[in-house]
């Protein structure tokens, strides 16, 4: 259980205390990852099924490693090689996998709400690994973890999220998490990619990159999805890059010293982020990947680890 939750589907559902429970535990989990023997027996005999209806390398491997470091068995299931191609429905697939008695189902799906639907039909815990344009809770948590680890706290810090906010589940999870932990959020991107009324979520909207970056403690550059290009939303990658991309000159001129640059990956190098920035001193992108494993270990441990049967020494 994470606080009162049996599932981890949306950070919108999580209170500040519940977010901190995961983040604080992830600090201990990161220590485990740095040990000579990166394995602890806490989830021995538990199993985690990764159910991916959408392509992913980072998130799926991250959940898989997290499960294995905790000694749980991990089974990876991808839709391309499955009965979904024969017309099996989502709920049938989930129920069939559940009959194999996993303790946690990790689901990625292109439809917003798919993990919640599955959670209503299975008995085990469900973790969303990203659903449509809804949320990507473990990514939101690892973003919080990374910024908190580097800056010491999120209290009073300013975070800028730049790019296609409308279609970004990462942005949505970040928007639900960072403000609860005391950070201010600025959104920045083309007006065509900014959801109407998003200010109601407690953030400010900027249509000028320089203004959004000025004084920010951390900036999350969102991935621009190729299918959006040529779409009326943005005419060309060159124009996008010029207006909303972060290159070395803009980073040097506009970012304050010690600011952090994050990206959920995979990066379109030279579009939203120039290689010199992605690999440069501001970047904490590889920290995010390592922290992602620690955060996912914390999620799996809290959902699949039970309470002690007795409390003797």
């Amino acid at each position, binding site marked *: 259980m994470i606080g009162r939750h049996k599932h981890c589907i949306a950070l919108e559902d999580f209170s500040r205390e519940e977010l901190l429970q995961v983040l604080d535990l992830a600090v201990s989990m990161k220590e485990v990852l740095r040990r000579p023997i990166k394995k602890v027996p*806490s989830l021995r005999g538990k199993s985690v099924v990764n159910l991916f209806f959408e392509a992913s390398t980072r998130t799926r491997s991250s959940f898989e490693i997290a499960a294995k470091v905790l000694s749980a068995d991990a089974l990876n299931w991808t839709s391309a090689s499955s009965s979904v191609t024969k017309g099996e429905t989502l709920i049938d697939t989930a129920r069939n996998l559940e009959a194999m008695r996993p303790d946690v189902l990790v689901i990625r799906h292109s439809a917003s709400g798919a993990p919640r639907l599955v959670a209503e039909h299975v008995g085990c815990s469900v973790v969303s690994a990203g659903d449509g344009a809804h949320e990507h809770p473990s990514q939101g948590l690892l973003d919080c973890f990374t910024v908190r680890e580097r800056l010491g706290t999120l209290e009073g810090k300013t975070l800028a999220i730049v790019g296609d906010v409308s279609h970004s589940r990462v942005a949505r999870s970040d928007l639900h998490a960072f403000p609860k932990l005391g950070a201010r959020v600025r959104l920045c991107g083309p007006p065509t990619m900014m959801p109407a009324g998003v200010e109601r979520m407690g953030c400010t909207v900027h249509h000028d990159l320089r203004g959004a970056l000025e004084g920010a403690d951390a900036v999350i550059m969102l991935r621009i999805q190729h299918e959006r290009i040529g779409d009326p939303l943005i005419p060309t990658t060159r124009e996008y890059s010029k207006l909303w991309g972060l290159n070395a000159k803009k980073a040097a001129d506009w970012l304050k010293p010690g600011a952090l640059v994050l990206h959920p990956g995979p990066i379109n190098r030279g579009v939203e982020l120039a290689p010199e920035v992605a690999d440069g001193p501001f970047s904490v992108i590889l920290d995010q990947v390592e922290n992602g494993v620690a955060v996912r270990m914390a999620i799996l441990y809290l959902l699949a680890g039970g309470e002690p049967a007795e409390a003797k020494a």
Partner: protein
Amino acid sequence: MNASDIGEAVRRLAREVADRARTAGAADSLAIVGIRRGGVHLAARLRAELTRLLGHEPPVGTLDIALYRDDLSARGAAPVVGPTDIRFPVQGTTILLVDDVLYTGRTVRAALDELVDFGRPRRVWLAVLVDRGGRELPIAADFAGATLAVADGQDVQVKLREEGAAEDAVVVTGRKP
């Protein structure tokens, strides 16, 4: 046990450990590891005594055994996991494992499993402030500050100043069945 009993017990434990370490030729390779949370402050006190007795400061670390417990059940909240902090190479050292109370032996079992994941110590000794009996595993303390006959169902609490207690004390609570 009152504050002066505890002070005396810690000094005696340190003397016994120092003697045995010298006899075993382990005085230079001794390292102290406290089991969270009760063993951490005792480990620090033993280290201070041992530094005086051995003439050098043995390294100290902390183990949190939550991820190595054998009693996770399917219901309710998972146990809180605190930081484990071992910054010295475990390989070849003589480890003095420290806890406040030795009871079923399950915590020590978990601590041993966790410890060997950091390397292969030359040997491991166990020091506890109170051995209350009631073992469920074949585990014994090498050094015990006190041995108390405490019934199952009773609770032994070690209260130390480092944790905010007004003064050090060992208190047995609950009624004998």
